[in-house]
């Protein structure tokens, strides 16, 4: 304890220099926490978005994702009701949504375009609500009766190319499972954007029942399982797979290619930034400690004469570096906390990421485990830098050190 007290006195000795070294450490700490906090936030939002778009788990025919179908719905699911019933009694499961993927032609009578359609139950829109950005009209109502015209919800780009407004009629044509061509009229119920221009040009939603009639099938392409808690996905993956071994169960991350590529990119960028910050701290501390050791040469000679071992002398310097590291880390955590809070209050908007047309709020996720680990690493880096500097600086003989001026 007494030695720590002396180390404190020594840190305060050249207050100005110590202050700047602490400042450099604090800035490095802040940079690491803010950038990785931003990455963490991005990962979480992308994970949530991916899980909301596709479902935490997707149940399909085992060959659905791997093999190309010869005819529509060749690798569809026919007997999934028992799985659905079983899942719906589980209170961790939020929804079980069967879907049909279909493609074909959309026409307004004068012009035709290709569409990529999703046949969904109307409850899909409640489950995915905030993630589908409605620009006009409303989502599918879910009211299906034989005499009513079925509804379609168009993505913005597709609606534009069809010159379709809410309430207009359009025709969808698709190949049925038995190879015939079928066409139905639909009324435009709403227009939305996915935020991804390429998707917006082609995508539309129709009711699951209409999709079944259009391509003449009783099967579905996939069944999406939505959980209340994203973190429960891994756990549920095994239990759902155990329900029926004739189906494949895929977790969201295996299908979240955008998430994976962003994560890989950010890990590289922010990893590099982190390494640079660590090097900055290393050289800054090692420089400070070399100056300190040189200035105190005669003092080192004095305490060595008094019987201090070299290891003890180095230990005292390491304690000083440790104090600087810890002070810098604490200051960095405080600054990062203030930045996090300020961004929350100011609500800055980030430009749209590549491949997207919508910006998003700049938010930083403050993570205590990350702050603690980074503090530990930076303090260790400070101590190692000091070890390098003092090891080199403390190698004078006692008599040389004592006569140093």
């Amino acid at each position: 304890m007494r030695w720590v007290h002396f180390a404190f006195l020594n840190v305060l000795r050249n207050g100005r220099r110590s202050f700047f070294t602490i400042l450099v450490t604090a800035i490095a700490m802040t940079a690491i926490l803010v950038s990785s906090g931003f990455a963490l936030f991005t990962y979480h939002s992308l994970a949530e978005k991916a899980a909301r778009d596709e479902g935490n788990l997707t149940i399909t025919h085992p060959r659905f994702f791997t093999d190309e179908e010869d005819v529509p719905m060749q690798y569809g699911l026919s007997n999934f009701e028992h799985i659905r019933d079983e899942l719906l009694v589980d209170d961790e499961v939020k929804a079980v949504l069967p879907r049909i993927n279909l493609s074909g032609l959309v026409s307004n009578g004068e012009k035709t375009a290709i569409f990529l359609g999703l046949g969904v139950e109307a409850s899909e829109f409640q489950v995915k609500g905030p993630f589908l950005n409605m620009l006009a009209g409303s989502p599918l109502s879910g009211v299906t009766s034989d005499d009513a015209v079925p509804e379609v919800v168009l993505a913005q780009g597709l609606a534009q190319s069809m010159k379709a407004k809410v309430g207009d009629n359009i025709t969808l044509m698709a190949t049925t499972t038995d190879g015939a061509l079928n066409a139905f009229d639909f009324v435009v119920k709403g227009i939305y954007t996915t935020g991804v221009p390429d998707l917006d040009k082609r995508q539309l939603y129709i009711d699951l029942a209409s999709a079944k009639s259009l391509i003449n099938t009783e099967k579905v392409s996939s069944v999406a399982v939505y959980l209340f808690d994203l973190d429960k996905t891994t756990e549920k993956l095994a239990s759902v797979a155990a329900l029926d071994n004739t189906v494949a169960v895929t977790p969201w991350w295996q299908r979240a290619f955008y998430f994976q590529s962003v994560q890989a990119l950010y890990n590289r960028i922010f990893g590099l930034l982190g390494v640079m910050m660590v090097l900055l701290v290393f050289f800054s501390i090692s420089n400070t400690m070399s100056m300190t050791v040189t200035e105190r040469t005669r003092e080192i000679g004095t305490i060595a004469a008094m019987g201090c071992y070299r290891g003890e002398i180095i230990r005292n310097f390491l304690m000083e570096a440790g104090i600087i590291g810890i002070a810098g880390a604490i200051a960095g955590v405080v600054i990062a906390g203030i930045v996090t809070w300020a961004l929350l209050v100011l609500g800055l908007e980030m430009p749209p990421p590549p491949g997207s047309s919508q910006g998003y709020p700049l938010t930083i996720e403050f993570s205590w485990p990350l702050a603690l680990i980074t503090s530990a690493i930076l303090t260790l880096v400070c101590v190692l830098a000091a070890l390098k500097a003092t090891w080199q600086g403390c190698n004078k003989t006692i008599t040389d050190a004592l006569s140093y001026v």
Partner: protein
Amino acid sequence: MLRFANLTKSYLTGTTEVQALKGVSAHIEQGSTVALCGPSGSGKSTLLNICGLLDPDYQGELYLGGELVPANAQALTSIRREKIGFIFQRYNLIPVMSAFENIEYPLLMLGISKAERYERVARMIDAVGLGKFAKQRPDRLSGGQQQRVAIARALVKEPRLVIADEPTANLDTPTAHLVIDLMRDLGREVGSTFIIATHDHRMTDRCDRVIELSDGHLTEQTKPALQLAWG
């Protein structure tokens, strides 16, 4: 207590070799205060560095308390920590520590308990007459006061041997007298052997024995009159 025989030491600067000690021998009694005189450059510091186990690089034999001094650096450090106190010309106090903490330092190195440390430091700081200055840092003390703190620091662990290299060279005469008397009196109380390098007669007059170095050779200077007076 301390005995050396045929000590030789040479320094190599560039290609020229300087013989600082040319085979010196002496025996110093336990508890005596010995002045080591000689002009500047005569080898006083060189001899003190060897006797104080600061410089292991010499030829000849050195016995401390009847035992040959080991060659191992760790062992030398351990002996210095336990048995040798140092007083320097420029005081060499640690500037960020108070007078009290400077005196406490050697006891801390010896792992002495807090209660005992405090008691011994308090006693020592009073003995050098600086009780009122316990909390002051060295830069707030005069040269004489700083050297008194340094004396307390050297003596607080009650060392067998105290090495002092020109301790009064930076002090005016009255202060020097005070410092010399303090060293001698406290040294006697503790029973330490003192070797004091000096070319200062204010000092030699007050020591038990004076040995003189000149040009790397040692000669004994007996001062019967003084020995009677101070015996």
